[in-house]
């Protein structure tokens, strides 16, 4: 299987030895290259996701979705992006201007930081250190700060209610996400992202960890949906109650940033699900089936990762477009009375399984 570190190593070698740049310059150039690459990927994926959601949603709702702009509606997304870029940014009168302006950047920054941690392919990772998963949990929680700021600084009752709901929801469901991630860490024995992927070389965790891993997977799907403010947990922006929740007062590109972050977060949670339970970029390997494993290895690792992430996204969209929305008290009860206790017990079971070596 092609190792992308060959490419990165070659560039590094080129800068350091062939062009004999000093160390600081090498690092700077590499950082810029990585940043440009990341942001490009970020935008392209966001654009793809908006179309993806529209197509899946149309398919589920017996509609045809966007078909007018360009062949098969492919140019629709460019029209949408240009529209949102050219829209006026409405300024409010009686609000906290600085925080209002800052809030969308908090949200986007949090999602870019998490985005950077994803294992894109073999040797194709921006941030990889021994507490990678912990870092993901930490930076992804930054987003809620942006949402709270947005709701508060808009000086509107609807946004405030949205932000309050959002705060309660994201802080609660962060626990379940954390616990289900811990369950996997327990199985993998490492917090490093590349380590977790490597540990799934002989079987994905959802197969290796059997029952506790499946429970953790289900909890993760529910909690990630909630953490992402997506249906059936889209209370913070419940359109039919709070018009648009915390971002009611935003317009133009500021609103666009929230929108962007929302879709990227969908990709990120799908990517994390792929990483933790479906082997990240690791091809499907079945122990003993050497020929099969060899064939699977021919598919590039990036394809594996993206394919798994898109599949998980499809699951999330399917859920969103099928279920009605829960109520705030039901949502909190679900987390604190059901998901979290189950998750904790599940963690203990996983620990027992690992210590007695009851895993495949």
């Amino acid at each position, binding site marked *: 299987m092609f190792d992308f570190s060959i490419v990165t190593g070659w560039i590094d070698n080129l800068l350091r030895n062939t062009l004999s740049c000093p160390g600081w310059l090498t690092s700077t150039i590499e950082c810029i290259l990585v940043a440009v690459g990341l942001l490009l990927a970020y935008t392209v994926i966001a654009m793809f996701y908006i179309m993806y959601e529209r197509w899946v949603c149309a398919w*589920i*709702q*017996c*509609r045809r979705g966007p078909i007018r702009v360009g062949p098969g509606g492919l140019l629709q997304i460019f029209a949408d992006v240009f529209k949102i870029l050219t829209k006026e940014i409405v300024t409010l009168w009686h609000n906290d201007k600085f925080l209002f302006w800052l809030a969308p950047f908090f949200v986007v920054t949090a999602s870019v930081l998490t985005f950077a941690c994803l294992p894109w392919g073999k040797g194709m990772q921006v941030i990889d250190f021994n507490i990678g998963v912990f870092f993901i949990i930490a930076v992804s929680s930054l987003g809620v700060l942006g949402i709270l700021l947005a709701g508060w600084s808009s000086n509107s*009752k*609807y946004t405030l*209610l949205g932000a309050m*709901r959002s705060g309660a929801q994201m802080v609660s469901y962060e626990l379940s996400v954390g616990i289900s991630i811990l369950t996997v860490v327990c199985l993998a024995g490492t917090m490093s992202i590349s380590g977790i992927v490597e540990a799934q070389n002989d079987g994905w965790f959802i197969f290796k960890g059997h029952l506790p891993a499946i429970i953790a997977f289900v909890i993760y799907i529910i909690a990630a949906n909630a953490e992402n403010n997506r*249906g*059936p947990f*889209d*209370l913070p922006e*419940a*359109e*039919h*109650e709070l*018009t648009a929740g915390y971002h009611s007062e935003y317009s133009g590109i500021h609103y666009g940033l929230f929108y962007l972050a929302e879709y990227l977060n969908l990709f990120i949670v799908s990517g994390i699900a792929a990483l933790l339970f479906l082997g990240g970029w690791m091809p499907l390997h079945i122990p003993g089936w050497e020929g099969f494993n060899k064939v699977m290895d021919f598919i590039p690792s990036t394809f594996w990762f993206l394919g798994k992430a898109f599949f998980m996204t499809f699951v999330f969209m399917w859920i969103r*477009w*099928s*279920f*009605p*929305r*829960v*109520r*705030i*008290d*039901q949502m909190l009860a679900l987390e604190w009375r059901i998901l979290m206790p189950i998750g904790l017990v599940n963690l203990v079971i996983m620990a027992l399984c690992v210590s007695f070596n009851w895993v495949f």
Partner: protein
Amino acid sequence: MADIQEKIGALCPEAQFDTSGELLLVTVPDEKWHALAQALKEELHYDYLTALVGVDWKDSLGCMYYLTNTATQEMLHVKVSTTDRENPRLHTVSDVWAVANYQEREVYDFFGIVFINHPDMRRFFLRNDWVGYPLRKDYDDSPELNPLRLNPEENEDDTFSLVEEADGTLKRIDKKVFGPEEYVINVGPQHPSTHGVMRYRASIEGELVKKIDVVSGYIHRGIEKLCEGMSYQSTLLYPERLDYMAAHMNRHAVCLCLEKALGIEVPHRAELIRMMMDELMRLSSHLLSYGCLTMDQGATTAFFYGFRERELIYDIFDKTCGARMSMSYSTIGGVVKDVHPDFIKDVRHLCAIMPEKLKEYHKLFTGNVIAMGRMKDVGILSKEDAINYAITGPSGRASGVHCDVRKCHPYSLYNEVEFDEVLLDKGDSMDRYMVRMKEMEQSVKILEQCCDMLEKEGIEGEYCAKVPKMIKLPAGHWYQQVEASRGAFGVYIESDGDPKPFQKPYRMHFQSPCFNLVGVVDLTCKGNLFADLISITASIDYVIPDIDR
């Protein structure tokens, strides 16, 4: 009738009786009215105030009350009036029949009659700085008096009560709707879930709703006033613009009322076609209501499922009436033209696919655990409250009130077809939703029978009776109810018997079901969460133009 007359005579010796109209008319002096109202409700069980119509008789101002005994379905008609045009005052009956609260506010708005002891005497539709009372015959409608005001209404929290002291003197008490300590959130008039231009002001504590104030009138068009300046044929245009999801039924009601007044016999075929259109309309309305209820709870997909089948119904309307909304199909004496040759085929196709599609709707939404959690035991409306607030239609039947006009006061050909009145008893959001789902099955059943009947009649036939070009009604008043999509829709027509060739209605009043439905929003939502406000109002399912008229 004589029996009731005797009993009322014993309760109130001052009452005068008139048996010449369609119902027994009891005229009561205002000072005896409140005591009689209480006795009528408690002793004679006239517990359902069907309609309250304000009328200006030039020499006097007053109200017509239509009462119904929900056990026997007998109706009674009471007239109360005052000759004082400067400071007209009547006693309130809002403590006897809760529905009178909003109805009296409407009368106050249009006729300026102040109701003594009414708890909250504010205008219901018009702005509080409106000059004059539009439905009075001496109303000055010059635009200088009431220009288009663009400033927000001031002091919208102010209200008052005229309280009668023990010695008979009247005292005005000024009040506020919301106190300064309350956190009031404004829902509407531009809000995705108020189903139109409706505005609530909700006092909330955290997410808990404490009190809701209904602010109505954002699309009030003054239809009753407009009708007073038109011929009877022209007024037929308006009822379908009230509840546009009950366009056929509303127009049917006005036609029936005029036919009753004129004594016109409608051909059997015409009545059959009207009834089929009514049921198609009901089906389409309930499909929309399913869509909106699910959408308001976040299940966007279900909305499209409902609309998919609704499209078929609209195609049927399109073929026969030439329009998809505001069809203008019924007319005095029958229908405008005969049905399209494909009509029966299309209706049969719809009837054939509906049962299967209904199963699909249930599969997608009804059994869902989140949907059950959102609707079960939420927004309970007891049977007593439903009658007290005059809640009819699917929402009333969900509380167990036997109120289907098709069964209580059969009109058209409803006693020739077999169908069941769907009655549930809990009165929560889930029941209101289920009543609609079950009524769709009944509508399909009625339509199937109608198709058979229409096939027997042949492809063509007489579809309209002979009607004079100039319609002149004798002096008098008539009231006709039909079962619209959302409840009993009543039409009150009063004629002064004007001998001129171009006669206009003296007073026309539409008793719309949604007006009463919005009256229970506060009652059902109080103590529930803010998210429930949306799901409860969606399950009550009102249409704003029907409230605002």
